[in-house]
C-alpha cells in the first residue's frame, strides 16, 4: 500500500546540509503493524511526515495505493490526509478552545458533513473511546491520557487506512502509555495499518515489524 522508492529529504540550515532521509526505500502492506525506532535525529519524524503527506521529499517516489502522491496538487494531498491518513502526535495537538467533542468533530467539518450526521458520529466516537462524560471539557481540563484518547478519536473518526503515531506515549507515564498503545492496536486489529514511532523498547516490541533508523537510513527491518 505504501511504497517509498529512494526517498530523500534534505534540510538546509545556513550552509549546513542535513540529510534527514537518505534514499529510503520501503514497502508497507495494508494492515501491517510497524514500529520505527532509532536515536533522536535519525529521521523518524521526517519519514512519518513524508508518509503522511505533511512533508514533500526532495527526491524519490512515493506511491500510496498505487498513486504517485508526490505529484498530487495541494488540495488533493489535503484530501488524502483527511480521508486516508490519521496522525497522532506526542503533544496531542488539540485545539485548546474547542471541547473534546469539538476537536473530534473537526475532520467531519473539513469533510463537509451535515451537522446532524456529525453529531451522531461524534457521539458514537466519544462512546467508543470512553469519553462521553468528557465531551464538553476543554483540553486543559483533561488528563494526558484523556487528551491522547481525544486525539486518537479525532485521527480515526473518518476511518483512515493508515494511522501514523509519532511517539504517542512520549508525554504519558508508562501505564497510561500502555493503554494508549492498546487503543491503537485495537484499531489495527480492525484492519487499519499502524505505524508507530517510539523510544520505548517494550512498546516497540509489540509491533509485528520493527524498523530501525540511523542518520536518515534504515538500518534494520525485522519481522
Amino acid at each position: 500500500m505504501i511504497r517509498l522508492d529512494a526517498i530523500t529529504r534534505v534540510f538546509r540550515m545556513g550552509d549546513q546540509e542535513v540529510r534527514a532521509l537518505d534514499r529510503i526505500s520501503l514497502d508497507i502492506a495494508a494492515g501491517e503493524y510497524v514500529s520505527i525506532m532509532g536515536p533522536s535525529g535519525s529521521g523518524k519524524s521526517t519519514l512519518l511526515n513524508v508518509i503522511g503527506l505533511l512533508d514533500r521529499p526532495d527526491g524519490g517516489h512515493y506511491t500510496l495505493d498505487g498513486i504517485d502522491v508526490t505529484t498530487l496538487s495541494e488540495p488533493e494531498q489535503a484530501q488524502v490526509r483527511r480521508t486516508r491518513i490519521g496522525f497522532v502526535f506526542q503533544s496531542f495537538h488539540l485545539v485548546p478552545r474547542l471541547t473534546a467533542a469539538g476537536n473530534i468533530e473537526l475532520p467531519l467539518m473539513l469533510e463537509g458533513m451535515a451537522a446532524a450526521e456529525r453529531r451522531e458520529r461524534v457521539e458514537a466516537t466519544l462512546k467508543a473511546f470512553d469519553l462521553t462524560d468528557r465531551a464538553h471539557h476543554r483540553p486543559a481540563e483533561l488528563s494526558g491520557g484523556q487528551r491522547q484518547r481525544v486525539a486518537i478519536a479525532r485521527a480515526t473518526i473518518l476511518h483512515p487506512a493508515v494511522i501514523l503515531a509519532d511517539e504517542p506515549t512520549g508525554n504519558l507515564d508508562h501505564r497510561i502509555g500502555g493503554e494508549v498503545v492498546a487503543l491503537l492496536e485495537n484499531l489495527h486489529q480492525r484492519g487499519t495499518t499502524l505505524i508507530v514511532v517510539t523510544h520505548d523498547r517494550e512498546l516497540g516490541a509489540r509491533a509485528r515489524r520493527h524498523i530501525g533508523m540511523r542518520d536518515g537510513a534504515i538500518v534494520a527491518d525485522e519481522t
Partner: protein
Amino acid sequence: MKLADTLSLSLHSLASARTRSLLIVLAMALGVGAVVVLTALGEGARRYVVGQFASLGTNLVIVLPGRAETAGGFPGAALGQTPRDLTLGDAQAVGQLPGVRRYAPLNVGTAELSSGGRLREVTVLGSNAELLPIRHMALAQGRFVGSAAQIVLGDAIAQDFFPDGRAIGQRVRLGDRRFRVAGVLTTQGESMGFNTDEIVIIPVDDAQALFNTETLFRILVEARSRSVIEPVKAAITELLKQRHDGEEDVTVITQDAVLETFDRILRALTLGVAGIAAISLAVAGILVMNVMLVAVAQRTAEIGLLKAIGAPAATIRQLFLAEALWLSLAGAALGFLLGHAGSWMIRLAYPVLPAWPPAWASVAGVATALLTGIVASLLPAARAARLDPVRALSGK
C-alpha cells in the same frame, strides 16, 4: 468545509479572544459611526440652508432697481443719468410675460400701528394677494384679496393687539390711515433674518400712499417651473430695458443660483468630512491586519494541526478571512447604530438642524468597513494558508 461551518468556527475563535475582538470591533465602529455622524451633520447643514431658501419661495425671480453688479453703481451715472425706479406699471407688465405664474410688487417701510390704546412700530409690506403664495406664507384666519384698506397681521402682532384671538374685522390705524383686519398670518418664525410674525401686509396702493412714494422696492416673480427661470429672467431684463428707454438699470436675481452654490459647497463639505472619517477606517484596517497577524502567529500550531488532519490551504485562508469578515460586520453594524444614535442626539440637541444621515453615507461607511477588514486580512490569511505544516506543528 461548508460555509456555515467556516463562519461558525471562525466566530468561535473570535469569541475566545474576546478583548482583542471587541477592540477591533470598536475601532471599526468608531470609524463607521464617524462617517455616518459627520455626513449627517453636513447633510443637516445643507438641508437647513436649502430649507431656509425654499421658505422664501420656489422658482423665485426678484427684480430690484439699479445695477448691483458694477461696483461704481449705475453705469449711466457718469453721464448724468439716474437709474429709473421700478413702478407698479413695470410690475404689471412683468406679470404679463409668458412663463410667469404670479408676481407681487413689494414696498417695505415702518409705521406705527395702533388700536384700542395700544401702539407699536411695525414693519409694513405693501403688496398684492399673490405675495402670500409666492413667499409661502399662509393665513391662519381670514382672507386677503388686496382690496383697499385691508390689512394682514403677523401672528405675534395679532396676539399683542387682540389677545382674545378675535382680530378679523377689527379696525386698526397704521400711520395716519385706517385699516380693517382681513387676516392673520400663521406663525412661521424667523427665516433668513426676517420674522414674518412681526410684520403687517397692506395693499401696495395703500403702502405707496402711506409712504408717499411712486416706486417699488422689489418685484417678486414666481416662474412657472424651474426650467423657465432663466428665460423668464432674460425676458424681464429685456422688457424692463424697453420700458426704461433702452437702459439696463435693474438687477434681476434668482435665488436658484445662490442656492445651487450653497448646495454645491455643502455637498463638497459633506463629502470631505466623510472622506476624513473614512481615513479612520483605514487606520482600523491596519489594526485588523496587525491583530490578524498576531493571531496567525499565536495559532501556528493549530494551523499545522488543521493541515495535518486534512484542511487544504484554501480552507485555512477562508477561516481567517471569515474572522475578519465577522469583525468588520460587527464593527460596521455597531458603527451604523452608533452613527444613527449620534445623529438622533444631534437632532434632539439642535432641532432646527435636520441631521439625517444620507443613505449613501451609511452604505459607504458599512461597505468601506467590510472592504477594509477583508483587504487587511488578505495578507495574514495568505500567510496562514502558506504555513509549512511540519514547522507549524513544531511551533516554529
